[in-house]
């Protein structure tokens, strides 16, 4: 396997969990809800996916468990913020704290066990093409799912009636309500989609990225996903670019070290974050870019008037 090919493959695996989690959060935020609990939902997804896969021996049941547990966590968030109308920032943060603690509890008996690895799809003839083969056709299924998710979200948000309703709810919930849309129900739906994506991202970590369960194994990836949504100014394809930019710099940092160039490793570890911050600054400097897509109602609670 060539060096370039290995780097590209590693970048893909490093970027995929960020992409999946971010695309889910993008939909949530487009509906006007800010869920800071991505990290918590992701880590619970990771542990549930691992536990289910380990117990049953099937990675697909693991994926299902990861998704469902993510949805479960998000429904809790939905109940708090939509039904009980609590503060979204506080609820999201507590969801993350809850997720980190809860996953440790669930995972107590699963730490350090050899996991069930999701096998890559191998298409015999195509996978053997040099470079293009393994990169395009040799990935594990969730990588393809992540791309499909981006395309689907982009399509639904911009080209369908449902997408229009979601954006209307996020843009002005009073108007959407006046038009007869059930704002709370739409937001519940989007929150659950976000939870499913975060759970799936967690499942990717514990089933494919490093097939094992370790406490706090998300290691801040949920927060990076959150930042990527803003980085992308709520546009699906920009989330794709952002996730891969972050993954590329992350892996190149390790790659450069292996070449023995002599750049301090601490600096290389910090570089992806620095670049993300720099990109955020540049983007938020461009008023037009942010204004067009920013959901006007983000973070605001909605109580329907009678």
């Amino acid at each position, binding site marked *: 396997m060539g*060096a370039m090919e290995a780097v590209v493959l590693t970048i893909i695996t490093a970027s995929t969990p960020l992409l999946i989690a971010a695309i889910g959060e993008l939909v949530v935020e487009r509906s006007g809800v800010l869920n800071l609990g991505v990290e918590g939902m992701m880590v619970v997804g990771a542990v549930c996916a691992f536990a289910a896969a380990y117990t049953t021996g099937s990675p697909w049941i693991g994926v299902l468990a990861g998704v469902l547990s993510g949805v479960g966590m998000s429904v809790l968030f939905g109940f708090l913020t939509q039904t009980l109308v609590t503060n979204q920032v506080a609820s999201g943060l507590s969801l993350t704290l809850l997720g980190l603690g809860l996953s440790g509890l669930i995972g107590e008996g699963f730490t*350090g066990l050899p996991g069930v690895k999701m096998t890559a799809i191998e298409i015999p003839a195509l996978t053997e093409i040099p470079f293009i083969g393994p990169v395009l056709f040799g990935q594990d299924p969730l990588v393809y799912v992540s791309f499909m998710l981006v395309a689907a979200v982009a399509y639904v948000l911009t080209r369908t009636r449902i997408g229009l309703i979601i954006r209307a709810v996020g843009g002005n919930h009073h108007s959407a309500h006046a038009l007869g849309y059930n704002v709370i129900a739409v937001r519940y739906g989007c929150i659950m989609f976000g939870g499913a994506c975060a759970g799936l991202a967690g499942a990717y970590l514990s089933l494919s990225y490093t097939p094992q369960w370790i406490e706090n194994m998300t290691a801040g990836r949920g927060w990076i996903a959150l930042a990527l949504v803003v980085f992308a100014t709520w546009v699906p394809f920009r989330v794709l670019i952002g996730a891969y930019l972050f993954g590329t710099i992350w*892996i190149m940092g390790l*790659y450069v*070290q*292996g070449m023995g160039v002599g750049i301090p490793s601490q600096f290389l570890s910090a570089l992806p974050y620095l670049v993300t911050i720099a990109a955020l600054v540049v983007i938020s400097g461009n008023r037009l870019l942010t204004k067009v897509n920013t959901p006007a109602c983000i973070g605001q609670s909605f109580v329907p008037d009678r």
Partner: protein
Amino acid sequence: MKRMIGAVLAIAMTVAAGGAIAADKLKVGFIYVGPIGDHGWTYQHHQGLLAVEEAYGDKVETVYVEKVAEGPDAERAITRLARQGAGMIFTTSFGFMEQTLKVAEKFPDVKFEHATGYKRADNVSTYSGRFYEGRYVIGQIAAKMSKSGVAGYIASFPIPEVVRGINSFMLGAQSINPDFKVKVVWVNSWFDPGKEADAAKVLIGQGADIMTQHTDSTAPLQIAAEQGIMGFGQASDMLKFAPKNQMTSIVDDWAPYYVRRVGEVLDGSWKSEDTWGGMDVGMVNMSAYTNLPDDVVAMAKKTQASITDGSFHPFTGPIFKQDGSQAAGAGEVLDEGTLLGMNWYVKGIDDKLPQ
């Protein structure tokens, strides 16, 4: 009796433990940096705890706290154990050094044992293993088994302990193949499976066909197995994570030391000292040599035996530093002080040391 303490119970327990000091039983506390389930560093320390229980039965009571972060958290955890009446406390990571000394000052009657540190006090001993001895052996194996002549080395933090390991590995490899190359990637963490896995993939992509690590998770070895290259376990036997790809593992065996030191507290002969044990006292072991041809196994066993009986020291000259200056003349062995404070690479390592 084995008891586990959740961090949540901390306050309740501190209050409850006020006067509950058992008169006849020695309470022995352990502070772990990782989870017992890491199957590496912390797992091995826990084996030591089990050995202490086994050896002294009713005369001791053991308590442990796992996943204690290095830094201020450690001070709280150590203080808690001391308040609960522990007569002896093992703090099992380098990063607990300052906290151990601080707490030791407040509890002069409690005996402290700090792993891999270098600061002592009247009631604080230090102990460590000469893991570099094992690294020399695996360096030799790596050079024998590698086809590309390049090994990938995943390192944690640039402290002397880790640098010494890299140098010893390199010296072992150079004794077989003078042109052997080691590629080092620092992940700046003891335990981050995701990052360790990424680093392993990158190293393999850069031509490494032997994987070794000075981090605590099993991830690099698992990646090695997945991509079909050979590797070494770290701190404990990781064979079950890579049954066809682990060649051997450097195993830290703390049990004999822990049993002896607890015994000394029980009979009152304990005093503060520094222990740096190697293969000779069984603190450093090699797990079974697997997936290797017979001649390589024979060579490894021979080196292991000569280190164990003291006839050979891995840091025997001539040793040249990376900058070309000579660190040890032919036949000369580096002194302990140089080994303990090692902050330079030997010649041939393709990396600059992060400062």
